[in-house]
């Protein structure tokens, strides 16, 4: 718990020097840091207690979508994850229902609510929104981009790893965070792109206006054309203890760790073996956090094999055909119990294992943030969607889908733009799920200096092909999805392929020397303090199995890939081609600790977190014949801050459990606002009292 003081990829940034108080205790925040992250950095993970049952409340979405992180800042209830700390701010925990400040002056007057007329409004300044803007801008169209975060890039800014996809279409081989910077810089060339940061789109109204709000102003935007590129929200999972502080989304975790450089955990476990879960585990290790393991209910992980291999090599186990049974603890997670499941996902009694952990990251999939799209569509607006808001896929696909949407909007606004016929196919390739996995092929070895490519699963990726100065690497079959192969024996030992591979799946073997030992160069993205020249390390194969002890001969930066280290290991000649990486995490971290500590029964699982509605009450209503989710509002389901965004899918899960055909179930009515706004801002008051 605390701050990350060194990171292999990210700048640690300025020191925390902004004083604020929490419950009367003086603390320090970084400039611009949101309250919730500042509190985590100071060891505070409980932000208050719920008025309905007194349950501890903490971080959940870290994305302004829920209201779990409610705190009182200078007397006013605010979402901690969205409001930056101001110097001298007095923050208190939200214990029960907050009180409004009592004394207040009558308003001097109200500013008019501005209506911003524009050709295009883009909601979301992530990869899809930015690339769409870059397609629109050269046509001289007026573009407004709103984004609720303090910088552009969306979730790219959380991605410390290099991107997959194609070099030509989406900057493959470049780290996500660097892609964000490059794209944002590209936009600065266009004065007709107006970027509104820290600004949330909160409503789509019948009169075809979009309500947007920031800390200073509520305004309306009236666009000729609207693009929803608002990304995704994380799916929740219902299990006993799922509402404990310390159970939260992998995306929320990445925000804390990679955006705010906060270390929110000492030891965690991940549920979900898709790319998000696998990468979150990797990011945790990068941040110096112990990872007990990754649990996946399916027999195989859904994410890229190279992501899985990466974490297994570091020493993080991946347990397939397992799920989380429960999380235990008082005011926060203390233990997590996992259990094996059969083909029908039924837990197998007797296979429970309980681990000590303070955090459980949920990475069981994403849902598009599409409610504004649906409303705009209903109100007859010219509306498009791109990126995850349209279809959940990799950021590389979002980059490309933004381009396509951009050009479609150019055309709909009466300008000419070609949409090449092959773009559709390329987009399909970029968003394709991982394909077949093949056995590892033996590589060319004649000269004694050769790369070993452990890329055995069809995924959209091609940087290694483009980087080799000798054109030694070719992709067989599909030019993007196919598997790269070494086709010539002309290696010069430049090591660029080792450095560029986003999957860290290429090593360079050097057997040219005499004697019993050979050399192998492996890529490494942890702190250089973890490994030093002269150390003996555990060298492992592709899947993380121990091969041999190895001596570290050299640790070098892989220029121009400055934050990847290339580590040269000395190992027995016959083992050099087998070595794929080195283990850093001790096996004891993943050993079970004791008995499960969760006393919560299945019926007591909290389904609606905002209003604390339990599974048993919802089940009773379902059994009583309720098929209209709007009737569940009598239990207060969906009446909370998030408006059913989190619980709707979980409630539908309960219907499935009760064998109700979901075709017979009517969903929650969706209404503005998608996020709460103060009356003061809605009225046109300006914070600070300067009203005209």
């Amino acid at each position, binding site marked *: 718990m605390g701050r990350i003081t060194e990171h292999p990829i990210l700048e640690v940034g300025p020191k925390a020097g902004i004083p604020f108080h929490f419950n009367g205790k003086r603390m320090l925040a970084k400039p611009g840091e949101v309250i919730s992250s500042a509190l985590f950095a100071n060891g505070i993970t409980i932000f208050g207690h719920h*008025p309905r049952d007194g349950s501890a409340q903490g971080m959940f979405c870290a994305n302004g979508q829920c*209201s779990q992180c409610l705190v009182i800042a200078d*007397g*006013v*209830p605010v979402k901690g994850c969205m409001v930056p700390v101001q110097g001298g701010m007095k923050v208190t925990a939200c214990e*029960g*229902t*907050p*009180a*409004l*400040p*009592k*004394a*207040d*002056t*009558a*308003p001097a007057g*109200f500013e008019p*609510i501005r209506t911003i007329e524009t050709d295009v409004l883009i909601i979301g300044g992530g990869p899809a929104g930015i690339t769409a803007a870059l397609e629109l801008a050269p046509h001289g169209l007026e573009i407004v981009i709103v984004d609720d975060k303090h910088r552009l890039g969306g979730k790219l800014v959380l991605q410390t790893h290099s991107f997959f996809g194609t070099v030509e279409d989406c900057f493959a081989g470049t780290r996500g965070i660097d892609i964000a910077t490059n794209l944002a810089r590209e936009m600065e060339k266009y004065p007709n792109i107006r970027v509104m940061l820290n600004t949330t789109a909160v*409503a789509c*109204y*019948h*009169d075809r*206006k979009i*309500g947007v709000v920031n800390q200073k102003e*509520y305004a*309306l935007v009236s666009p000729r054309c609207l693009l929803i590129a608002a990304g995704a929200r994380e799916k929740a999972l219902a299990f006993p203890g799922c509402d404990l502080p310390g159970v939260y989304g992998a995306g929320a975790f990445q925000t804390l760790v990679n955006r705010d450089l906060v270390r929110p955990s000492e030891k965690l476990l991940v549920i979900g073996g898709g790319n998000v879960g696998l990468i979150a585990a990797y990011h945790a290790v990068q941040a110096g956090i112990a990872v007990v393991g990754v649990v996946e209910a399916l027999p195989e992980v859904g994410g890229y094999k190279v992501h899985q291999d990466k974490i297994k090599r570091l020493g993080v186990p991946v347990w397939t055909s397992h799920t989380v049974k429960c999380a235990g603890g008082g005011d926060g997670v203390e233990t997590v119990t996992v259990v094996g499941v059969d083909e029908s996902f039924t837990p197998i009694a007797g296979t429970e294992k309980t681990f000590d952990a303070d955090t459980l990251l949920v990475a069981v999939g994403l849902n598009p943030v599409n409610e504004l799209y649906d409303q705009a569509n*209903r*109100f007859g607006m010219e509306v498009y969607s791109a990126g995850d808001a349209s279809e959940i896929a990799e950021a590389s696909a979002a980059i490309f889908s933004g381009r396509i949407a951009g050009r479609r909007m150019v055309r709909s606004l009466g300008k000419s733009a070609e949409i090449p016929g092959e773009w559709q196919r390329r987009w399909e390739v970029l968003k394709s799920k991982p394909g077949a996995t093949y056995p590892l092929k033996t590589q060319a070895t004649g000269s004694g200096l050769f790369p070993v490519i452990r890329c055995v699963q069809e995924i959209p990726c091609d940087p290694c092909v483009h980087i080799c100065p000798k054109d030694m690497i070719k992709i067989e079959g599909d030019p993007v999805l196919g598997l790269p192969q070494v086709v010539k024996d002309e290696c010069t030992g430049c090591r660029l392929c080792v450095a560029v591979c986003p999957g860290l799946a290429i090593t360079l073997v050097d057997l040219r020397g005499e004697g019993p030992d050979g050399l192998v160069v492996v890529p490494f993205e942890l702190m250089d303090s973890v490994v030093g020249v002269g150390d003996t390390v555990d060298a492992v194969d592709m899947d993380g199995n121990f091969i041999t002890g190895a001596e570290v001969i050299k640790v070098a930066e892989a220029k121009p890939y400055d934050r990847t280290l290339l580590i040269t290991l000395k190992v027995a000649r016959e083992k050099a081609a087998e070595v794929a990486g080195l283990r850093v995490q001790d096996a004891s971290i993943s050993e079970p600790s004791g008995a499960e500590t969760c006393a919560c029964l299945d019926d007591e699982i909290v389904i609606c977190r905002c209003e604390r509605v339990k599974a048993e009450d919802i089940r009773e209503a379902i059994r009583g014949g*309720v*098929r*209209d989710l*709007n*009737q569940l*509002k*009598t239990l207060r389901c969906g009446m909370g*801050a998030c*408006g059913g965004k989190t619980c709707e899918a979980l409630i539908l899960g309960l219907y499935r459990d009760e064998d109700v055909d979901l075709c017979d179930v*009517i969903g929650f009515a969706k*209404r*503005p*606002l998608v996020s*709460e*706004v*103060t*009356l*003061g801002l*809605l*009225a*046109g*008051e300006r914070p600070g009292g300067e009203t005209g």
Partner: protein
Amino acid sequence: MTSHDVIVIGAGSVGLPTAFFLAQEGVRVLVVDELPSPGQGQNKSAIGGVRATHSDPAKIQTCQLSLGVFSEWKDRYGDDIHFRQGGYCFPVYEREHETSLKDLLATQKEHGLKIDWLDAADLIGVLPGVNPDGLRGGTYSPEDGNVSPILAAKAFYDRAVEQGAEFKFEEKVISIKKESGSAKRVKTDRGSYTAEKVVNAAGAGAREVGRMMGVDLPVVPDSHEAGVTEPVEPFFMPMVVDIRGLPGSTNFYFYQEATGHLIFCLTPEPPIPGLNRDSTSDFLPQASRRLIKLFPRLRNIRVRRVWRGLYPMTPDGVPIVGTLRDSDGFYIAVGFCGQGLMLGPGVALNLVSLITTGQPIIPGGIFESFSLYRDYSRPSEALK
């Protein structure tokens, strides 16, 4: 033999209590509604105010009956419908409003309403934090209150089912025909039912159902928008009604639920006729300004959600309840002008009495005010 004794069209604020009280009398009742579940028309759009503070005597007496039903419900039937006797308060900043409200006090008191004029200091005691600048005082009726519309609807529904009432949801009535004898056949898009008596409690769809009954009901829906905030610690009890007219709206009203949520609504000027229920961008700035002007401390409370509901309006602001002159067995309970929730149980008791005994509960002379055949050019309800 008919399939039922009474068919009620509409499972809303009026149809649900009507069904419950009929079923309680042992009447075989069927309720038909085109929506998927109870209270999904205008009931769930209601903000929850229940007052007897009107100017029309029939409305006063009917709402007194409603208040009785709501306030005793939990003790009688066990369901917590979140009824709270928080009163109604009309703060006044203009001389003309002081005069008109004071003029009504005599009639209101005559019908047994507990209501009084409070001077500014006393009013601030009831509404801590109300803007004192120019406050002249206001009326306060402590026996009025508020109730959760959706919990009340659910309670009426659950108890009606318990008493044997039948419900058909997602069925739209397409015709009502007289059959041999006194039987009526109600056809829907999915079925066909018969009964001796048919009640039109179709809310915003009342006129369409009226035509099927062979009568043109002067009911024209317009719409009002409403909003709800996050919960904050409760700091006032009554429903507050500000009857000043401002550009874009006439009166506006709000209260704080026991859970701490603030619910607010305003009457747009000019009215917005039609059936559209989608939120507009005008409402929140208008309502927010009025709320902050009246209660400056509310500037820090956050709005959670907004919606728009329909007010089935009559020419004089008084509902139409009773029988049809030339068609025996047809009953109407329509045109509640946005007050279906507060009038619903009282109207239901009167209707059930009409159906079973031929006489309303409140005196016939007063009940006449609700007649379809009244003179709509008479002075209209002052406290719409």
